[in-house]
């Protein structure tokens, strides 16, 4: 059921009064993609979703679905269906009538629409709740009804506005898996708005990281996580330590980043190669860093700091250092490595990593540099 839908935003802008919620966005989402729009609140991700859904009209620019400009078309003609954040199930209708609502609007006969609604309820395992009203459902059940109600319109594109945010942790993980399975089965495009990084990484083929109405990076989950484009993306996705410095020399394919009194970072040059004298940002994954108490000589690819906090996470241990960089410096050590030579809060330790684990942030700082006023994670 449903045909795959390719979604393309061309120079899309949306102003609310003076402020631009979305500012000249260009984005192409291939047909059959699970796409997550990710960003902090107010970054414009929901506005983009609502523009694709026709609940918000773009101030300028085009929204194309399968090549056709759909600006001005109602949702049904666009082939989109939306799942609302609070589900927006009609409180006065039973689950069956909620699901059959769009068929009723298009004039399908009662027996026919109930039959089709039952079939789709079976698909989300909710047949036994057909005669209940939404107030009698749990959060997860409401979500399935909302999903069924959206899918019965045979959309090319399903738009999900923070669909998992109202659920508790256990259900969130369960429904996350179900959404992904459903998308694979249907083969249609899912566009899913979230502010939770693990959710985006776990679900999406295409992660679109947004900030202040702009796209910071649109790439596969793996690329966004391991090859962030900007310091903003690296910090927002978490799991990275970000350094800034001046490119002091490039010799024999090795770039040297000078961080003055904090030492130097050296890494193999690859395209694009930064120019000497410019400011560059690099990141190093938290789990690629090692700690030692010995104050070994050398100032290359190493920083020292005082242990501020230690959090045991089961298979790994999160060690936070202060004084290593201008922000908190976090090292995720495998439990096996941590317990060989345990460090304690207050210890001064040295962190080091391999040149190959240094990733150049080719986009620089990014629009705002820091995603949250004080760092998350």
């Amino acid at each position, binding site marked *: 059921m449903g045909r795959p839908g390719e979604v393309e935003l061309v120079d899309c802008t949306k102003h609310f009064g003076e402020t631009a919620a979305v500012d000249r966005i260009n984005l192409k989402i291939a047909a059959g993609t699970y796409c997550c729009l990710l960003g902090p609140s107010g970054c414009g991700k929901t506005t983009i979703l609502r523009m694709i*859904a*026709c*609940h918000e009209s773009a101030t300028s620019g085009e929204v194309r679905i399968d090549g056709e400009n759909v600006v001005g078309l*109602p*949702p*049904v003609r666009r082939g*989109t*269906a*939306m799942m*609302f*954040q*609070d589900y*927006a*199930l*009609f*409180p*006065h209708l*039973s689950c069956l009538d909620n699901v059959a*609502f*769009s068929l*009723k*609007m*298009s004039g399908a006969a009662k027996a026919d629409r109930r039959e089709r609604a039952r079939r789709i309820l079976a698909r989300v395992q909710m047949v036994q709740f057909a*005669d*209940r*009203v939404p107030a*009698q459902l749990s959060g997860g059940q409401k979500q399935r009804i909302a999903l069924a*109600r*959206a899918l019965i*319109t045979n959309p090319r594109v399903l738009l999900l506005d923070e669909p998992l945010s109202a659920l508790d942790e256990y259900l969130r993980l369960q429904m996350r898996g179900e959404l992904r399975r459903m998308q694979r089965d249907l083969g249609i495009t899912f566009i899913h708005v979230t502010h939770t990084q693990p959710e985006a990484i776990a679900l999406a083929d295409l992660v679109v990281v947004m900030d202040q109405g702009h796209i910071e990076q649109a790439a596969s989950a793996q690329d966004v996580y391991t090859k962030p484009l900007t310091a903003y993306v690296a910090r927002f996705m978490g799991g990275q330590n970000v350094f800034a410095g001046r490119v002091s020399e490039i010799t024999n394919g090795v770039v040297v980043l000078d961080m003055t009194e904090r030492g130097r970072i050296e890494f193999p040059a690859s395209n694009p190669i930064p120019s000497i004298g410019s400011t560059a940002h690099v990141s190093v994954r938290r789990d690629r860093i090692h700690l030692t108490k010995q104050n070994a000589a050398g100032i290359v690819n190493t920083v020292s700091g005082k242990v501020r906090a230690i959090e045991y996470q089961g298979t790994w241990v999160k060690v936070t250092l202060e004084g290593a960089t201008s922000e908190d410096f976090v090292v995720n050590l495998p439990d096996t490595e941590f317990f060989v030579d345990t460090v304690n809060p207050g210890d001064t330790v040295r962190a080091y990593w391999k040149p190959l684990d240094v990733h150049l942030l080719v986009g620089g700082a990014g629009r705002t540099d820091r995603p949250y006023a004080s760092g998350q994670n």
Partner: protein
Amino acid sequence: MRAPTTDRRPWTFYVLAAVFTLFVLFLYGPMACIYILSFQGPNGGLTFPLNGVSTDWFGALFYQQRTGDIAGAFSRSIPLALIVLTVTVVFSLAAGLGFRRRFVGAGLIFYAAIASLIVPGLVLSVGIGLGFQMLDIPPRWYSSALGAHLSWTLPFGLLIMFAVFSRLNRSYEEAARDLGASTWQTLRYVVIPIVLPGIIGVALFGFTLSYDEFPRSWLTVGPYNTLPLEIWAMTTNITSPALYALGTVTTAISFVVITAALTSIAVIQSHRTRRRVAREQAMHAGS
């Protein structure tokens, strides 16, 4: 804080209970007296004690010569209240929907509508009466009085619809639109069913405010009185327990209207729950 160790209530409970009892006595005591006295015996007077028990005074209501034109007053007050109800519901709903969209002058129109709640009813009545006289239109219950009543019920209805719509989540309408409903279908199948209890509340207000209205009717009904005016006229020229019987009958009518409205709200809200229970029982019986 000390944990309560006994079930004893604090002294404030008894003070407040006493105040409340006095309030209830003050509210219902006089009314109860009137209801009881309306069953006064045929030779009884306006005061206690009862001189026998009868329903004669209820019969007396319908002899125009003795007690005024009660039946006629009913035949005007009830249709008037029903017209006011209808107009109030339609316009309050439309205005409530209109005010959901921000439009230029919304604040001004709102305050203009609310201002008529503050204008004293008698002044309004005099004004409308004079206005009709100047325009040389004879005042009647279905023209000038209708307008006067609407000046009272519409702002009330509007305020209620504001409260109702402020709790109506906009995403219901967006969801309906998303599912292919036209504007009319959204109104018919989503908005109105959800706000129906509020609409019934507006209808109830419209009816009772009009049915009880005295000051705004005073100079606007023309030669034929509505019920409150008729009762008032009677108090000045008759002194029999028929007056009490009239009080009992009008209260009974108000009571029936209010009960009908509240019952219909309760029925709407439990309708689907009961339907569900019935279906589940049928399913269990079948399995």
